[in-house]
């Protein structure tokens, strides 16, 4: 497994602090509930913050014998400590408008007490506090390396929130949730570190320094209602007000406001002394609020969700690591680099590409060739090499993967003595704009070298497609007159998750070898048109996905039988009432947009399947237009019944056909679209949605056609509408 420094530190930090972070997170979840439960108590009084201190004090004075303190707690509830007429002390939540007692003070529940202690110091006093502070800092570093990894993976700041390529559940949600929670996590950890530093007195002192303004005055005494200072502050600014102990003039009111502390003469109401709250204590107050979420329901919820997210990251992160460890292949070379005729070099970030290289390596070994497999970074001289085959992924914005970073430099420095034939295979995903860019770079670099002559043109593989890899092997076999057989590792299928489906109906193959298969799930399952049905044929266990059209609660699939297709052949031989094992995969991005006013559905060939279902589900009176491209009129017969039905019911507003083999001139679906540019502009302008389903080739031509239309008529590139989620695609 090859790993970059960022990924490595992300992992190492996570492993080393997992246990502590786990404890802190679980207790964090419990503690986040405290401010939430406090906030829902009925002690808040509307508009209390606008009441002036003078008014509040007057009310309390009238109501009680003596007032000792008036303060506001972190939940913004007003607390009064008073002496009753019987000379008893009492402290409670008070309504500052009426002086009425609202309730007893909230006592910290034992569970929160316990969680706070564990969260703060693990019951280890100072040592614990230090550890918690340290691991909080580690978590901060994990978040920072995480942000860096997302930036690299997505290809820059601008694409930070772009769509994530789904490899598996853990990887997908690790990234998706990560993007939203990284900022709160950074805030939680930084404030946590700050609070720890504060406890260890590592921050500048925040002691208040009072400046005397007036010592004693001989001005005449006025009642506290007349105090200018109490009139000028409202409860909003109040933190606490302490009344003088005795009637001695040297005893004064101590008024704590959010940003300063005032000593006030109890007779004249003049400010005797003033101290500004230091920056450190303001930051410390904010840290406390941001770290604990006290007083704000919404932020406490954010903290709660972030803590749950951290638990998920721990689970998904470790699952991914373990999976990768299991899948990673060690290079065990039989021959040295100078004994081998075939040199395979790999550029891989996560180890997926290396697996393909290993399969090719094994195939060559089985065919009794001398082979040497290595990383691109270890490029060197190869004495008797005849073939160089490069397998490389791309990382970030077309950069080299971590184990290929030095290849460019090495290639310039090291010259091969003999002529070597080369082939480059690029691995990547079409979802990124820089699809296989590094492979293109490597291909170009080799082309420039004198001693290298191309054997095969650059070959790009999308989403680790086994089929594409097989195609490349075929090409390679032809070019070198060999007959290599690749042993594709059978992925394991979780049989428990497969469900039984009964074949209700199957049509004969038409002229295009296409047929309709109607299935019914034996158990009730949730699905919609646009979801996918996954088959795992016994031969290779590789997943085959078919788009579902939901017609009268049954699953309708449109399948083209391929000459070498394992799955499609198997399905084409099914008979009525047969049982098939498969799994429904939800495809939420490709459901019928019930929120849109108008929908255009574009498909070619078997891509029409989900639309056959959607058309008949459209009961909301959404204007729907269908464009379909097929070969001949006969191809269309297969679907005509369902389309006629939708037309009759009024679910379909228009239908446009394009036949590529019917007339002299080939007409494709994109040509028909170009003729209907007015309709397309109208739909896009009215926030309508365009859905595309079918082959990748058709998707590319259609997108190109749509882009021409939007650029010329709407003065915007198509990407604007794509980002608005007005374009939905499901192509293969």
């Amino acid at each position, binding site marked *: 497994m090859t790993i970059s420094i960022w990924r490595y530190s992300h992992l190492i930090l996570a492993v080393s602090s997992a246990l502590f972070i786990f404890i802190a997170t679980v207790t964090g979840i419990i503690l986040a509930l405290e401010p939430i439960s406090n906030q829902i108590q009925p002690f808040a009084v509307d508009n209390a913050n606008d009441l002036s201190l003078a008014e509040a004090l007057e009310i309390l004075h009238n109501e009680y014998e003596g007032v000792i303190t008036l303060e506001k707690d972190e939940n913004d509830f007003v607390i009064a*400590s008073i002496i009753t007429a019987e000379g008893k002390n009492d402290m409670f939540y008070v309504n500052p408008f009426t002086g009425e007692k609202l309730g007893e003070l909230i006592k910290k529940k034992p569970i929160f007490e316990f969680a706070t202690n564990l969260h703060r110091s693990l019951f280890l006093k100072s040592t614990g506090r230090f550890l918690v502070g340290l691991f909080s800092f580690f978590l901060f570093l994990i978040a920072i390396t995480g942000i860096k990894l997302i930036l690299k993976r997505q290809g820059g700041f601008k694409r930070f929130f772009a769509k994530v390529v789904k490899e598996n559940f853990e990887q997908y949600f690790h990234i998706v949730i990560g993007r939203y929670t990284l900022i709160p996590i950074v805030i939680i950890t930084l404030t946590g570190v700050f609070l720890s530093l504060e406890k260890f007195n590592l921050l500048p002192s925040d002691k208040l320094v009072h400046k005397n303004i007036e010592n004693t005055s001989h001005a005449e005494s006025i009642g506290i209602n007349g105090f200018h200072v109490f009139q000028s502050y409202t409860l909003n600014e109040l933190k606490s007000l302490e*009344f003088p*102990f005795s009637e001695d003039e040297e005893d004064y009111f101590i008024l704590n406001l959010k940003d300063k502390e005032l000593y006030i003469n109890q007779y004249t109401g003049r400010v005797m002394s003033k101290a500004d709250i230091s920056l450190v204590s303001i930051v410390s107050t904010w840290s406390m609020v941001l770290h604990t979420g006290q007083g704000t329901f919404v932020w406490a919820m954010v903290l709660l969700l972030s803590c749950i997210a951290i638990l998920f990251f721990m689970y998904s992160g470790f699952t991914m690591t373990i999976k990768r460890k299991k899948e990673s292949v060690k290079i065990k070379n039989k021959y040295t680099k100078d004994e081998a005729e075939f040199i395979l070099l790999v550029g891989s970030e996560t180890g997926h590409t290396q697996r393909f290289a290993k399969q090719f390596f094994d195939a060559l070994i089985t065919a009794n060739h001398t082979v040497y497999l290595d990383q691109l970074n270890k490029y060197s001289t190869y004495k008797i090499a005849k073939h160089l085959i490069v397998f490389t992924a791309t990382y970030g914005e077309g950069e080299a993967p971590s184990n290929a970073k030095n290849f460019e430099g090495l290639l310039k420095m090291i010259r091969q003595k003999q002529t070597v034939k080369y082939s480059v295979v690029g691995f990547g995903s079409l979802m990124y704009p820089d699809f296989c860019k590094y492979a293109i770079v490597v291909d170009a670099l080799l082309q420039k070298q004198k001693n290298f002559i191309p054997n095969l043109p650059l070959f790009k593989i999308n989403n680790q497609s086994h089929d594409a890899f097989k195609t490349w092997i075929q090409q390679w076999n032809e070019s070198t007159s060999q007959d290599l057989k690749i042993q594709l590792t059978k992925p394991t299928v979780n049989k428990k998750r497969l469900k039984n489906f009964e074949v209700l109906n199957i049509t004969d193959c038409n002229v295009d070898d296409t047929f309709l298969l109607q299935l019914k799930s034996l158990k009730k399952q949730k699905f919609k048109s646009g979801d996918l049905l996954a088959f795992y044929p016994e031969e290779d266990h590789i997943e085959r996905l078919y788009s579902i059209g939901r017609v009268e609660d049954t699953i309708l699939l449109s399948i083209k039988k391929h000459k070498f297709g394992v799955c499609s052949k198997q399905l084409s031989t099914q008979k009525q009432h047969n049982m098939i094992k498969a799994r429904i995969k939800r495809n939420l991005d490709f459901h019928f947009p019930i929120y849109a006013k108008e929908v255009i559905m574009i498909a070619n060939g078997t891509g029409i399947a989900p639309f056959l279902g959607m058309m008949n589900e459209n009961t909301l009176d959404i204007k729907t237009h269908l464009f379909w491209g097929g070969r001949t009129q006969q191809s269309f017969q297969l679907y005509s019944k369902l389309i006629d039905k939708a037309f009759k019911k009024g679910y379909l507003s228009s239908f446009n056909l394009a036949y590529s083999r019917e007339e002299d001139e080939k007409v494709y679906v994109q040509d028909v679209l170009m003729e209907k540019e007015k309709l397309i502009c109208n739909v896009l302008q009215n926030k309508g949605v365009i859905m595309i389903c079918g082959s990748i080739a058709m998707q590319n031509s259609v997108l190109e056609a749509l882009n021409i239309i939007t650029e010329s008529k709407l003065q915007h590139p198509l990407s604007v509408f794509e980002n608005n989620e007005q374009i939905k695609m499901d192509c293969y």
Partner: protein
Amino acid sequence: MCKSIKAISRVKSGELSFCENYKSFHLIFNNIFLALNKTELKRLKDYIDTLVIDYLEHK
């Protein structure tokens, strides 16, 4: 607790209360508790008045 104790005044650092049963003043200052009769309290007050606070606070 005795029901006839009445708080006279209180601040963060302590309180002064009076017990009507025993006619005694209770002075609490942080963790110091003093039970004093009227004369004793007066004497304590007079003594504290003589203290040079500035000197003691900055020693």
